[in-house]
């Protein structure tokens, strides 16, 4: 367990912002009487973890989360996303989770001489394994299976010096794709509330998708660009644990 914690600490400190200040915030929280015991444990953890592991408690219960990073895309003109998740945190540190989202993607870099848009709904289900650092900060790793139902459309333009401009519309509806994900994340409890701020890193591996010639699907809602067989992603969310 100690080795796992060190591995996740190295990985997640590098990729997620929350753990960069987890230790610092824990120290500040130490001044409050509510979490004093937790913080004391955190300090002791670095030197003598084995004697205190029983003091970490994993809360169980239903949770809801909203990806606020995706909400911010509502004001952009190149994509619009919404994603929320529901899950249940079990006392055995397992947390089944279902994520549902909707996305309209207008990647401007899809084609140099054209436009592209894909839109659809997607869902992912899977499970997280929670690794509490203390009673405030939690690391977790998980697996997901994703499914997206979407359509895309676009056009491209070929200009000629001596002939009329050639403009072509394209698009396909009723497309589906599935993929697998490896998830590494961390979250931090906000003081004494049941609210957690978290971030997670996903590495997505395409399983099946519809392919088209000559203009293939460029981006899949919930998965991302189809150019690579694995696509990384970063999510920021706020979670409420009932």
């Amino acid at each position: 367990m100690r080795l796992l914690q060190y591995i996740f600490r190295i990985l997640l400190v590098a990729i997620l912002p929350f753990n960069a200040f987890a230790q610092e915030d824990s120290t500040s929280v130490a001044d409050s009487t509510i979490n004093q015991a937790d913080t004391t444990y955190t300090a002791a953890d670095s030197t003598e973890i084995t004697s205190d592991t029983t003091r970490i408690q994993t809360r169980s219960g239903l949770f809801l989360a909203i990806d606020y990073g995706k909400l911010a895309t509502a004001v952009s003109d190149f994509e619009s996303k919404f994603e929320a998740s529901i899950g249940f945190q079990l006392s055995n540190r397992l947390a089944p989770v279902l994520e549902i989202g909707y996305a309209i993607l207008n990647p401007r870099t899809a084609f140099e001489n054209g436009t592209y848009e894909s839109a659809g709904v997607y869902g992912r289900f899977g499970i997280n394994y929670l690794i509490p650092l203390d009673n405030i900060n939690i690391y977790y790793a998980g697996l997901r299976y994703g499914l997206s139902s979407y359509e895309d459309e676009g056009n491209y333009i070929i200009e000629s010096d001596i002939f009329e401009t050639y403009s072509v519309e394209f698009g396909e509806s009723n497309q589906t794709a599935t993929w697998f994900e490896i998830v590494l994340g961390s979250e931090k409890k906000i003081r004494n509330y049941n609210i957690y701020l978290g971030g997670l890193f996903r590495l997505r591996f395409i399983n099946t998708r519809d392919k088209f010639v000559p203009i293939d699907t460029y981006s899949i809602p919930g998965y991302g660009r189809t150019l690579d067989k694995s696509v990384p992603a970063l999510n920021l969310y706020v979670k409420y644990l009932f």
Partner: protein
Amino acid sequence: MRKLVFVVILFPWVYLASSCEDVELETTGIDPFFRIKFINADSLSTLDNLIAAIEERIEIIDDSLVFYDTLDNGTDVSNIVERLNLERSAIDTERTEFNSTKAIIESGSVVVNSITSSTGVDAKLPGIDSTTLFSIPLNPAQDVSLFEISLDGTLYDLEANYTRNTVVELRTVIVQALDLDVTSSSFEVQSIEYEDSLSNNSLDAIVTVHF
């Protein structure tokens, strides 16, 4: 706590701002074309005839010089030999000039007045007289392109047939013209050669026509 606020609020906005740069569509240089070489066959034929006549005359002169060189009857033929040598030198110079002109014609160097598509728009022509290969854009919307070409004030017609193929290369949609075939009622189409023997793309094709 201030770091937390930064991450929660500012990070998504910084991310969005960095993704909002305007991207202009690149729509030129992606249409199909082929290259063509114009050979003035009449001039070439005339030059060939002239060069052949010169070579025939040189052969006669050489035979005469051998004859006079072997003449052993005491007759003074020095004036004749000198005159033959002068003539030979003169027509040899002329032959060299004709060969140079022939090489220029064979290279395809010709002044093209205009290349006009069926839409009535002239193609951009290089402003250099020594141009030997001319790029002619093909219609990306159809499998056939018609042209009217003006050479030395004479109009010629040209029809290009091909099979269009749409591909995406480096995020750019490109229309290729494959299996190019060129016909004309006024040009004599000599050859359609591909720089890459494995290619059937018009971009690699060089068409040679005689006029």
